[in-house]
């Protein structure tokens, strides 16, 4: 498979904004043109070739990045297709506004992963920062489509104001998961933190571990939701193994947040209570 390899050769001293780093943004360009792609470097400008060594080809739509990219922001932002793989730590806003394709990361990712994402798949083998899948400050909606798989822990406000899509955190997550959620599904398989689903209107928050809920959530019943099996199957098709105890468990259903529309739900898995 023809892959375009980009290796970070010089560590930026201040944040580097590189929204050109996606297969769809670089498609059809020569290596020379790719090296000349503009970047924002602090309050100045730079070119991609200033920081990355390039080799290979993007003929098959596969872009591979390597290095400590913790100061490189907006990688894969607005991506529309293709495959972006990354070995190493990645900075903020990875895949923000992404509409299609796949991003796969072996390493940690900063805040705002997949913020306002519209479609596609982001798969992170490592922990991520705050506000994964969230909406930017002042925006009404967070992610409106696509899937984010985090095989590790996540920070605060996962899926804040999320409107559609699926986020799975296999590890622990920080405070306020699903805050002001409009719709969609968030699953936290590790331990959760304070105030899940605060001010959520609709949508589903599946929590594998028992935790204290806000008093604005009302207990409904304990049952085995059939629709979860559709999601389990979808995840397995994506390549994520779903623990058997989650598949077989009964779930306590709480409806809320009654401060808002009150049609959101938190499903608490009973088996790990």
């Amino acid at each position, binding site marked *: 498979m023809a892959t375009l390899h980009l290796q970070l050769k010089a560590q930026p001293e201040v944040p580097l904004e590189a929204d050109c780093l996606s297969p769809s943004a670089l498609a059809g360009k020569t290596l020379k043109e790719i090296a000349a792609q503009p970047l924002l470097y602090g309050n100045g400008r730079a070119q991609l070739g200033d920081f990355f060594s390039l080799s290979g080809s993007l003929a098959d739509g596969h872009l591979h990045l390597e290095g400590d990219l913790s100061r490189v922001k907006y990688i894969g932002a607005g991506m529309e297709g293709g495959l972006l793989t990354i070995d190493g730590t990645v900075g903020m806003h990875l895949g923000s506004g992404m509409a299609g394709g796949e991003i796969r990361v072996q390493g940690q990712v900063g805040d705002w992963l997949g913020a306002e994402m519209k479609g596609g798949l982001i798969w992170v083998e490592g922990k991520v920062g705050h506000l994964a899948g969230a909406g930017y400050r002042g925006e009404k909606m967070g992610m409106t489509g696509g899937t984010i798989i985090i095989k590790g822990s996540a920070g605060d406000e996962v899926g804040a104001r999320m409107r559609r899509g699926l986020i799975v955190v296999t590890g622990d997550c920080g405070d306020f998961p699903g805050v002001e959620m409009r719709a969609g599904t968030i699953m936290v398989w590790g331990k959760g933190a304070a105030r899940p689903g605060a001010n959520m209107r609709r949508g589903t928050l599946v929590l594998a571990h028992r935790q204290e809920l806000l008093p604005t959530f009302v207990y409904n019943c304990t049952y085995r*939701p059939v629709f979860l*099996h559709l999601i389990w*199957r979808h995840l397995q098709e994506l390549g994520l193994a779903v623990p058997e105890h989650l598949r077989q468990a009964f779930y306590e259903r709480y409806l809320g947040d009654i401060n808002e529309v009150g049609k959101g739900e938190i499903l608490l898995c009973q088996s790990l209570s």
Partner: protein
Amino acid sequence: MQIEGVKIKDTFAEAFSLYGTRLIITAINRKWVMEAARSVTGFATSIIGCGCEAGIEMELAGEDTPDGRPGVAVLIFSVSPEELEKQLVARLGQAIMTCPTTACYNGLPTEKRLEVGAKIRFFGDGWQASKLVGETRYWRIPVMDGEFVVEEGFGYCKGVGGGNFLILAESQEAGLEAATCAVEAMGQVPGVILPFPGGVVRSGSKVGSRYKFLTASTNTPYCPTLAGRVASELPPNVNCVLEIVIDGLNLEAVEEATRVGIRAACRPGVVEITAGNYGGKLGKYHIHLHKVMG
């Protein structure tokens, strides 16, 4: 042509275009999924009298269903997409949603869809919720045992209705035995259903009647009790005729079911296998028995 001593008449079955869809019904166990499947396919033997023709296509193991529970594939046919949608909404709402633990999914991934879950959802009285999984939207409707999950849209295609063959037997016992064997064998063919009770029809019909208010009436040329009194199509030693009607998602499936069924029906006590047609003037599809069995 003869198979196992049974004459295969050189004639053809005349079949028609219908619109068909496939439902995947699941439930907590086989008992309840079969209850739902039997209920939704009940009173659906003939489009003329029932509005649609329906039947169980096959049982499905958990690994072959969307939610991992035991399932059944059901095919339903009607004269137009509009009528098919009307039948689906009515039948899903009354026969599947009402049945404990069930869920219902689209089993035909075509581009055009009938709005089924999208209409049934209103039963939720504002508490229905949708869930988009991948590219597929499902509706969750609160019901008294939990939730009824139904897919928003169901695919459909142009299919074939009214494929058939008739088993002419020496006795009722021999005819029934042959028909039973044929139905069992045809049950292994995907993409087809046999909409009549147990897959078998005894009251085959002809077009028209002496009564103005009836559009069809008993198939007098094939009624043994009228042989000698009307223009009969029956050889002298035939005392029972049973018909098997076949609907399928495509002509190939109907032809395959015809072939498998006729072969299984060629048993001792069966005199002849023939087929029903209208002289080739009404139906789009002509399934020639000799060609199919050749």
